[in-house]
């Protein structure tokens, strides 16, 4: 463009010229690359957030890892994979516990649990994650065992050594005198008690409770067993399940008849032991029933292809089992395998279909075909839910790798009501973590988004009128001399760290408001009439007196008026409380109006955040109003319009896009503000528009939870999603505001 041509600089030496040209080119490239790098780095934020949240919405994937046959004389009764995914346990009907390598099927360890001649006639697990299982034997006894794994390090290499232990003794417990085979079995192993429920060929239900106690001297376990039997249980029992507290026994008989028996009542007397009786499906045959992780929900699959979720509901002290959800699964779903760390499960169909589903989100994340063409004989999912092992009736084993990291997060789980476990109805809940492992994480953005908008709404309610009125007055009516003083004050207000506003709101304003509630109400009610009254009185004063005050100084005159009135309201607050609110306004609100009151509430947040937002709106709106060309206003005034008419009819229409964009930017700031809401609310994620209650906002939620979230977990990614939502919202709002402002600028330019 403007490169100096060498023609009139010929006397300088050419080396110097070359150096200059090189410098110029170098600067051009350095600046261009540096500038683009900075802009790229800024865009990186967007891309990185997107990169972190993408996995949330990726569908699950499975991949066949291995396929091999194993040799065994017996059919399998149970498969289980160890934590690392290196070994799996195969229990067979002959009572052999074989530990195989997942990759090759090679046997690492073999152990026979039974004497010769005894066979496994039924099987039950306490729960998948406890690794405790029970074998119902053909001689009428039950053996309870647990598979354990321990890594052993030799030098740099690690080997996993499997072993079996016996939580209630390494011998079969005899349940029936008749030594008839155990047909159906349920067990539950707990900290200090284990319960066995076994049904023999004679349709007698035997219950055994084994209490465990550790001798604190010898550290040996001592067991005391108590048994009783129930006779009228019917002859078509197919499944038995014990609740986690070992109190209730679920008996599924016939097609879909579920009976719930209170074992405590059953032990003392048989009256009223049956506390519930349900028909789980209408006309269809139940194919499988088992507990979801945590032992709260029952999953039922039936021959019509439906999988349903049930759990206890309390109605007026009565507990009943309620169907809460139905999963869209393929016809012929016949077997359910539950995950051990999440509320997810696998549904296997009798045509070889495989589906991954999750209880909380209520959706299936994968439909696949195992290629087996029929129902696998046994199946297991790894504790980390990354491996699935299936065995068919020809001893062929298929190993699948599962990639399903975030099944609990779906759009509907984030934004819609979800019927969480132990809740009486579908609700919006944010509760991301708890102390126990089998907790159902509740990732509903709705209460957080609601809290964010609530905080923003109340702060805008205060800030918008104050800031816009202030901007109007400052730009249009105020004397230039004060205007020059007011602007830095507002700039200072904008620069105040929000942590200070939050701290004042939480520690000073919140208790102050609580103590002076009547003052708050009375200020709101009295302030406007008082100002008008003062203005009226002022207008009636003799002109000589009024002329003492130059134009555009009204605001200054009002400062003492407002300050005095405010002080008076606060001083009279306690008397008003006595007079109107029976001495305690807070109690009056709660008792007489039924409005609950938190000390750190939306009112406090509204005031504090309003304070933070006022300068933002004020300065942009003031700029917009001040930029209205003077010849417009002068023309209007010259034509006889009053200043107020000029403002309403000429200035405001011209400046309104600017004012609108000011409000948008203010809203953006209110939505993203973190420290004020963090400190001035109780941070409880509730959905209630009540001004006297708190909230939790997206931003505060991120600040509270991100440091504790495990990297790359669903929780972590959901928080990134929250950040992304905030980013997009503010970016969108600000862009609109910016475009409006640019249009406005162009229009003024033409005027």
């Amino acid at each position, binding site marked *: 463009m403007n490169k*100096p041509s060498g023609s009139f*600089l010929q006397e300088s030496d050419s080396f110097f010229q070359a150096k*200059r040209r090189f410098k*110029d080119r170098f600067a*051009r490239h350095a*600046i*261009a690359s*540096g500038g683009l790098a*900075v802009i790229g*780095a*800024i*865009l990186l*934020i967007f891309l*990185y957030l997107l990169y972190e949240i993408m996995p949330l919405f990726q569908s699950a994937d499975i991949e066949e890892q291995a396929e091999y046959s194993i040799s065994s004389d017996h059919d399998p009764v149970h498969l289980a994979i160890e934590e690392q995914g290196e070994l799996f346990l195969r229990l067979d009907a002959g009572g052999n516990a074989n530990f195989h390598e997942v990759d090759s099927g090679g046997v690492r360890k073999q152990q026979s649990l039974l004497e010769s001649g005894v066979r496994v006639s039924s099987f039950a697990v306490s729960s998948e994650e406890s690794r405790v299982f029970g074998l119902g034997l053909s001689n009428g006894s039950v053996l309870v065992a647990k598979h354990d794994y321990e890594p052993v390090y030799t030098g740099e290499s690690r080997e996993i050594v499997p072993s079996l232990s016996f939580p209630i003794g390494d011998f079969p417990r005899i349940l029936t005198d008749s030594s008839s085979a155990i047909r159906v079995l349920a067990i539950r192993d707990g900290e200090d008690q284990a319960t066995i429920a076994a049904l023999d060929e004679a349709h007698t239900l035997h219950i055994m409770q084994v209490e465990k106690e550790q001798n604190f001297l010898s550290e040996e376990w001592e067991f005391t067993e108590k048994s009783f039997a129930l006779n009228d249980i019917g002859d078509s029992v197919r499944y038995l399940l014990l609740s986690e507290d070992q109190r209730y026994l679920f008996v599924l008989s016939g097609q879909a008849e579920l009976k719930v028996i209170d074992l405590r009542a059953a032990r003392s007397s048989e009256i009223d032991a049956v506390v519930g009786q349900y028909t789980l499906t209408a006309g269809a045959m139940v194919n499988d029933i088992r507990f979801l992780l945590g032992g709260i929900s029952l999953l039922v699959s039936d021959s019509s292809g439906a999988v349903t979720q049930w759990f206890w509901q309390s109605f007026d002290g009565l507990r009943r089992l309620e169907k809460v959800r139905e999963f869209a699964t393929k016809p012929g779903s016949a077997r359910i395998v539950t995950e051990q760390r999440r509320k997810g499960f696998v549904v296997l169909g009798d045509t070889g279909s495989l589906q991954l589903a999750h209880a909380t989100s209520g959706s299936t994340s994968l439909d696949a075909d195992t290629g087996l063409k029929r129902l696998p004989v046994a199946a297991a999912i790894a504790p980390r839910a990354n491996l699935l092992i299936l065995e068919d009736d020809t001893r062929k084993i298929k190993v699948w790798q599962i990639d399903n990291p975030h099944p609990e997060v779906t759009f509907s789980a984030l934004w819609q009501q979800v019927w969480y476990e132990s809740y009486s109805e579908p609700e919006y809940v944010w509760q991301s973590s708890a102390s126990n492992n089998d907790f159902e994480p509740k990732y509903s953005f709705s209460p957080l988004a609601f809290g964010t908008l609530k905080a923003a709404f109340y702060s805008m309610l205060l800030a918008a009128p*104050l*800031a816009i*009125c*202030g901007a109007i*007055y400052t730009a249009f*009516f105020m004397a*230039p001399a004060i205007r020059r003083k007011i602007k830095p*004050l507002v700039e200072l207000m904008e*620069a*105040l*760290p*929000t*942590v*200070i506003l939050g701290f*004042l709101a939480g*520690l*000073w304003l919140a208790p102050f408001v609580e103590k002076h509630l009547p003052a708050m109400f009375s200020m709101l009610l009295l302030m*406007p009439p008082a100002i*008008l009254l003062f*203005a009226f009185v002022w*207008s009636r004063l003799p*002109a000589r007196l009024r002329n003492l005050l130059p134009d555009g100084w009204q*605001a200054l005159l*009002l*400062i003492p008026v407002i300050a005095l009135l405010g002080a008076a309201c606060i001083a009279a607050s*306690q008397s008003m409380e006595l007079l109107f609110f029976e*001495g305690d306004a807070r109690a009056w609100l709660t008792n007489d109006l039924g409005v609950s009151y938190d000390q750190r509430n939306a009112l406090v947040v509204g005031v504090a955040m309003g*304070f933070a937002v*006022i300068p933002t709106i004020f300065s942009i709106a003031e700029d917009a109003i001040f930029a209205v060309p003077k010849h417009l206003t002068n023309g209007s005034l010259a034509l006889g319009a*009053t*200043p107020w008419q000029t*403002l*309403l009819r000429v200035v405001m229409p011209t400046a309104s896009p600017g004012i609108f964009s000011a409000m948008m930017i203010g809203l953006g700031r209110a939505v*993203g503000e*973190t420290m004020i809401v*963090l*400190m001035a609310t109780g941070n409880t994620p509730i959905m209630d528009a009540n001004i006297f209650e708190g909230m939790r906002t997206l931003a505060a939620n*991120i*600040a509270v939870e*991100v440091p504790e979230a495990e990297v790359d977990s669903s929780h972590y990614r959901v928080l*990134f999603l929250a950040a992304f939502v*905030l980013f997009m919202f503010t*970016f969108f709002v*600000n*862009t609109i505001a*910016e475009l409006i402002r640019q249009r406005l600028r162009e229009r003024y330019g033409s005027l």
Partner: protein
Amino acid sequence: MNTVEEKNSLYKSRKQSVGAWFGSGEPWIWVTGSAVAASVIAVVGLLLILLVRGLSHFWPADIIEFEYLDERSGQQTTVVGEITDSEQVSLEQLRSAGLQLPEEGGEFRQRDLIKTGNRDVTGSDFRWYLSENMRNIRFPKGLMVLERYEWGNFYGYLLNVKEQGREIAAQQPAEFDPETWQVFEARLKRAIELNDTIKAIEKHETRALNYRLERLRLAERELELEIGLDALAKNLAMAEIAQERAEIDAEYEVLQTRLTDLHQQVDRDSFTAVTADGRQLSLPFAKIVDALLPNQLNAVEKTWVWFTKIGRFLSEDPREANTEGGVFPAIFGTVLMVILMSIMVTPFGVVAAVYLREYARQGFVTRTIRIAVNNLAGVPSIVYGVFGLGFFVYGVGEQIDQLFFQAALPAPTFGTPGLLWASLTLAILTVPVVIVATEEGLSRIPRAVREGSLALGATKAETLWRVILPMASPAMMTGVILAVARAAGEVAPLMLVGVVKLAPALPLDGNFPYLHLDQKFMHLGFHIYDVGFQSPNVEAARPLVYATAFLLVVVIAVLNFAAVSIRNHLREKYKALEH
């Protein structure tokens, strides 16, 4: 505005009916004016609250002593303490709290919040007392306030001073004896000096030794991890390390002996104090930070004490879970972080602005980028914090650890929040501010200046370097100062990327490499949040939070006014060129 004023005065001079008055719109002007007035009251009020509550804490208030008739038990006790607050409470509320009060005396009763201190004796250090039940209010001369390393303040009388358990001076609590007090002060001065020496040794020499030991451990681990080295060389290096470790251990031994000796010296003296209700307490001088007799001080002396207390607040380390002591590490951390941030943000922000304004083709893309950059200034800061945590700490930081700090693993070096990541995050947060301000400065430079330079034969780079950048430098300064002001007040992202409530050491010290970018640090803003909301004794900590908040406001106000005045100065300077 002239026309407006004339119009206004025209309306003023006429007497109007109420309806006409409303019709003129005059009342609404007053209403809009009231918004400005309310905002001004709010800002000034807020600053006043911070000022008064923050600074009054350091004022050595008189200590009050009175007999108090307990409302519940009816017993009379002697109370000593400082009045920190008082309020009017309605009779009803007091009664519902279970107090038996007579009807006469009005609907409202005054009660005072007394800081009684002596938390180790009474268990709590603040209590409300009804004013009407106070009897015999007095301000005895001999009442002293002791600031202690543990248990907060002590209020009471001096009884005697002991050296190795032997009494060397004594007085009656009721009668103040200046000589005893002189002995007390001399011993206290000696203990404080010794304590300072001990602290200096622990802070510098012991820490340096620990640091060297840690480096040795890492070197050893590095050797273990190294595969290519043959056994002989490895053993040789190991022997070297072992020798150095032995040297350090020997030095440590010497230091330990010195410290033990100093501790013995400082533990030599003790004194006995008595509380208002007569309980005697034997205290070692080593536990005392400061002692005062506020009831004997005149206004000038009090002002002096006030200044020294503020000085100590600014220069000392925090004590007792941050609820007592100073905020020096927080000031230091804030300043250091902000400096690092400005070093990063200034060149990049300026380069980006120069590129956008001087080199990039002005078109749709540039305009879009400009809007995007502008809008990034409005993106919530917590989003930047999340980005910093995910990208810098867990992403880049863990990679750095894998590549360069393997010996320290699994303890993370850069794969954990720290100073470097905090300043980088804030640099990204504030870079839009610098870009916008610099661009504004560049756009203010008249075309004629550029064209003149080019016409004289300068290349574009020379024009930029010699003419444009110097002229735009005040704008850059403004941008950087605004960025610094924003960074100094920002807390939310820092909570995720490096700030802690209590850092064991300053990130800048005498140990190589002197500046520890991987360390966590303290920050004034976070200090406010932490002490105000997470501390166990909020009531005691509150004045300090106000003081810290006031300090932060002062810092930020100064920075902002500097930015404003530089901006104004710049506008004045180039006004002449604008035509």
